């Protein structure tokens, strides 16, 4: 099934102002603000939607608030949407909303939706680096380090859930929706890639006790490591509490920087994820500190070696 990735994540929160401030500080663009919530977009039109947990328009909560309330995938075309509707309609209620979203629940009970993707071409300056031994990318006399550089997340990357039965959860996505397992943490769960993208994962599932069911984290893609570092550093300077990073994952190779958030799980910046096709043979390792990252740093404030006396 030609699912291209995540289109939108919908959250039900208990502190709407803090959540809106979080997404604004994160760098997304607010495209809709009403008393009941807001919609924030990345450069390609993918989005995070935030509403008060009591909002009647939200999908039913499956975990205490704040938490994620709905995960909406983008599909390539109307035919794919109809294909998904026919497949999932075999054994569960599926509804088509006036917003064009086909809605149901996955086999864990997580509300999911599908729509013809909103993704649009990204209009942003190219990221150009100079590497010895390779043809230079950045033109002569064009500088790279710009303290005023705007860092707008480019695209919704992935979402991660704690689920009570990871094997059952995985089967739903692989057998019913055609997702591929790209890699696996044997003590946690699978990284999953839908057929319409080569990106390592847009979904990662973590086996957890039933009382943990819900959001683990979500992230948008930044342009590259440089932009991730700058965006994360600014985010922390604005008062958001770091959780993990910056560092670089091994599974997926994405750079990462996680922060605590008012959404019920962590909010991450990521960049430079691996691409895989169907010839890739999934790796399987235990998740631990060594297998989770190639390196890890902590934030620190600006500093200079100048000192008073040089």
């Amino acid at each position, binding site marked *: 099934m030609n699912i291209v990735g995540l289109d939108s994540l919908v959250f039900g929160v208990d502190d709407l102002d803090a959540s809106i401030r979080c997404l604004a500080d994160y760098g997304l663009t607010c495209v809709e603000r009403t008393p009941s919530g807001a919609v924030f977009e990345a450069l390609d039109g993918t989005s995070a939607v935030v509403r008060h947990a009591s909002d009647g328009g939200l999908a039913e909560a499956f975990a*205490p608030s704040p938490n994620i309330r709905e995960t909406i995938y983008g599909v390539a075309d109307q035919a794919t949407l109809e294909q998904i509707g026919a497949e999932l309609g075999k054994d569960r209620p599926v509804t088509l909303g006036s917003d064009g979203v086909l809605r149901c629940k996955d086999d864990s009970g997580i509300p999911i939706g599908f729509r013809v993707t909103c993704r649009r071409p990204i209009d942003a300056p190219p990221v150009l680096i100079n590497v010895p031994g390779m043809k230079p990318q950045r033109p002569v006399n064009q500088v790279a380090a710009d303290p005023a550089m705007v860092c707008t997340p480019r695209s919704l990357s992935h979402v991660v859930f704690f689920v009570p039965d990871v094997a059952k959860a995985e089967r739903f996505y692989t057998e019913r929706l055609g997702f591929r397992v790209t890699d696996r943490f044997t*003590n946690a769960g699978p990284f999953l890639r839908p057929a319409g993208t080569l990106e390592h994962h847009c979904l990662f599932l973590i086996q957890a006790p039933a009382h943990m069911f819900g959001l683990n984290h979500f992230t948008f893609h930044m342009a590259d490591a440089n932009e991730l570092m700058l965006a994360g550093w600014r985010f922390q300077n604005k008062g958001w*509490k770091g959780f993990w990073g910056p560092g670089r994952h091994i599974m997926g190779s994405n750079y990462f920087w996680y922060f605590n958030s008012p959404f019920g799980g962590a909010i991450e910046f990521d960049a430079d994820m691996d691409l895989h096709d169907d010839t890739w043979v999934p790796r399987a390792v235990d998740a631990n500190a060594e297998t989770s990252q190639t390196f890890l740093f902590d934030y620190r404030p600006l500093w200079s070696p100048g000192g008073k006396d040089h």
Partner: protein
Amino acid sequence: MAGANESCTDAPEAYRPLCGLDELPDGGARGFCSSGQGSDDFFVVRRGDTVVGYRNCCPHNGVALEYRKDMFLNAAGTDIVCYAHGAHFDVATGYCTYGPCAGESLEALPIRIEQGRVMIPRTIAWGSGGCPGNKGWS
């Protein structure tokens, strides 16, 4: 509140002032750094004349709880929340009622109120087990 620092509770000089009770928002929380430098390693929650204190360390994987400075509670102020993975804790006891560490508790910091001042142990020795540390993905 009893805890790892109970041995210091007999001598008055074993406590030092943290701040005035009226400097804490009633019904709210505030984080502090025990060394005076660095990130907040404990926090207190005030309800009227009662103040409770806890180490800023989630029993789930040993990280700080707040999402911003002093934001340790849910919006209604009824629960302490870890904003990494959504664990909820009882304010009065630190007991985790929901989330990854359900059934475990925050490490309590003994607090005294003396003449309108909030007092904490002069020497803070966090539990011998230390912060639980990362137990893995779940």
